[in-house]
């Protein structure tokens, strides 16, 4: 609170009074001590560790606020409390992440062995400790692979239409629907493929039997990936400078050729990034696979015939298994899945950083 009066102001008043830099640490230490003494040891409010932490944070916030209000004034106090709150929100979000990561590693390593990655669950009963996720990994790779083959051409072409060809209402409608489609729940995508492919289309070619298969799962994943791929491609195409297109046109190159050989290659890095993020999301989906892939304890390389497993479905199955060997398998599979998804995510982020187009 500087006072500007127009008269000569004493020098030390020019600078607002500040709390010394060590004061937040001091307040934090005091708050922690009081919380431990009162809640943890004094048994106030029930006294668990979680509660102690909550009380400590609350004391820290009020303490810092009060100290700052006394020394620096109300506005500064509010600023300090807001800053502390913002950072504690971040710390709070880290807790589950750290906990999940630690749990994944701690429980996932127990079955991280050769058998796990080279064997299926065929002939494994509740009393058998062996068995692995090979069949599930095969399923995930095939299902996601097919989904990529469906969504990439379709999604890129749709984005090309919206950005390069589309005029007026239709293009806007498609753009809007793509946005809305990103919000379609995965279980609805699964139900759609169930209602359309498994229950209506496959019985025709399958003499009346509903055909649960890896391909059906791939279709469901495609419904989920399509909007992501289209959306990211759209954005990348928009980022390709108009001058590039104009240059091509000026050279007399046909529009389609310009798009196919100038615009798309220029946006390729971003498109690949978008596809990889879509893959990462699809590989972790359980609900649609649960509904339409059927699950299978044995290896099935053919995605078009008979049921197939997938890594996420394997986790779901093993997690609920009444066998002490089930949960370790589930956690190892979870670790595998997270490693896979993280690798894709990190690769996508790195790629996007390297191939960023000028904005």
């Amino acid at each position, binding site marked *: 609170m500087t006072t500007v009066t127009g008269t000569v102001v004493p020098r030390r008043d020019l600078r607002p009074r500040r709390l010394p830099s060590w004061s937040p640490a001091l307040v934090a230490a005091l708050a922690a001590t009081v919380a431990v003494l009162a809640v943890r040891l004094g048994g106030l409010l029930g006294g668990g560790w979680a509660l102690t932490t909550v009380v400590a944070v609350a004391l820290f916030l009020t303490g810092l606020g009060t100290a700052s209000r006394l020394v620096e004034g109300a506005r500064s106090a509010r600023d300090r409390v807001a800053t502390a709150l913002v950072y504690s929100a971040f710390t709070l979000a880290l807790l589950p992440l750290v906990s999940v990561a630690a749990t994944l590693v701690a429980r996932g390593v127990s079955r991280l062995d050769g058998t796990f990655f*080279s064997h299926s669950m065929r002939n494994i*009963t509740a009393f058998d400790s062996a068995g692995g996720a090979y069949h599930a990994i095969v399923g995930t790779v095939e299902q996601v692979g097919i989904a990529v083959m469906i969504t990439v051409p379709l999604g890129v072409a749709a984005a090309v239409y919206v950005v390069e060809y589309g005029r007026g209402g239709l293009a806007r409608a498609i753009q809007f629907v793509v946005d809305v489609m990103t919000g379609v729940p995965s279980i609805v995508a699964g139900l759609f493929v169930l209602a359309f492919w498994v229950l209506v289309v496959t019985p025709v070619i399958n003499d009346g039997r509903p055909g649960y298969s890896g391909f059906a799962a791939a279709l469901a994943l495609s419904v989920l990936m399509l909007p992501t791929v289209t959306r990211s491609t759209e954005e990348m195409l928009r980022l390709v400078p108009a001058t590039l297109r104009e240059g091509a046109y000026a050279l007399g190159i046909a529009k389609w050729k310009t798009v196919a050989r100038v615009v798309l290659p220029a946006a390729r890095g971003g498109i690949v990034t978008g596809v990889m993020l879509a893959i990462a999301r699809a590989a972790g989906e359980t609900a649609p696979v649960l509904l339409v892939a059927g699950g299978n304890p044995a290896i099935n390389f053919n995605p078009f015939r008979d049921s197939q497993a997938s890594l996420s479905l394997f986790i779901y199955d093993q997690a609920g298994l*009444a066998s002490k060997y089930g949960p370790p398998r589930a956690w190892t599979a979870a670790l595998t899945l997270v490693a896979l998804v993280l690798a894709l995510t990190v690769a996508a982020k790195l790629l996007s950083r390297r191939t960023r187009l000028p904005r």
Partner: protein
Amino acid sequence: MNLKRHGMVVGVAVAASLALAACGSDNNPPVAAGATGGAGIDCVGGSLTAQGSTAQLNAMNQWIKDYQSRCSGAQINYQGTGSGAGQQAFIGGTADFAGSDSPVKDADLPRANARCAGGQAIHLPMVVGPIAVVTNVDGAKDLRFKPATLAKIFSGKITKWDDPAIKADNPDAALPSTPILAVHRAEASGTTDNFTKYLAAAAPNDWTYGHDTAWKAPGGQAEKGSDGVSAAVSKTTGSIGYVEWSFAQVDNLNVAKIHNGAGEYAALSGDSAGKTIASAKRTGTGDDLKLSIDYTTKAPGAYPIVLVTYEIVCSKGNDAGKLPLLKSFLTYASSAAGQQAVTRFGYAPLPDTVRTTVASTVSSLG
């Protein structure tokens, strides 16, 4: 440059998937302990597709494992899709036989029979699954229940472990004053059907919800599958649930003793469950071996909550190409060795009187 990088990524992916494709194996080696079943199998090649009840899934897996590891030419696939789905698949001709916890409904019988040219759809009692009432209570391991007490617990009328009714059943147990968490099945299930049938028959005054595959009493917590229920009970103190005995054994849960029609608290064993089956009335006609279980049986030592699961097959008119394997496989399942092989999963062997009838019916399938 960019291209080369993508090319490399693709190359690595392809190489990885090739490597993956090369080294996988469906042949899990038999584990030494207790996996020596399969004696007396008369090998026949071919393939069978079956599906249905999850209650007999463990038994089926064991028999299939025994059969396939003895007979390399045989391929048998049993999927635990549920009794209803199994029956529909049998009727629709997509399953060579179905596993089911409950007999085919009368309304569906004509359609099921229509599938069997020159014969009828018959029920072969094959797997006896006693239903265990499992508990997880601090300080009280061996609990005993009268049917009325169970009915009150599962319908939410008794909410604390130290309720007088529970105390009366367990005068010696130190019961805590904690709330009861009653766990039931989330989805439609034959186990729920049989358990509620038992409650409705043995405690008609306290259980007013009839019997159904869906759980109709209020409250409690629902879990998917018997494995879900047993996992929830093993993790939650103060909980009680009902599961097939096999699940209770696999998870090492505390199994309660149940008050039977003879006026005693019967512990669950293969023997005590078999006594209830032996006293069951046969209601099927011809080759059909459908049973009607008397839940209030006065047979001494009988454990009353049992589930019989059937294999539904055609007495005549089976696919000629599949018949030899079907007969051979079911012969093994209904043999003394086959029945013994699944006891470690918590199934009770069929009493010999029933088993011999089943075996002779299997040998006459056409």
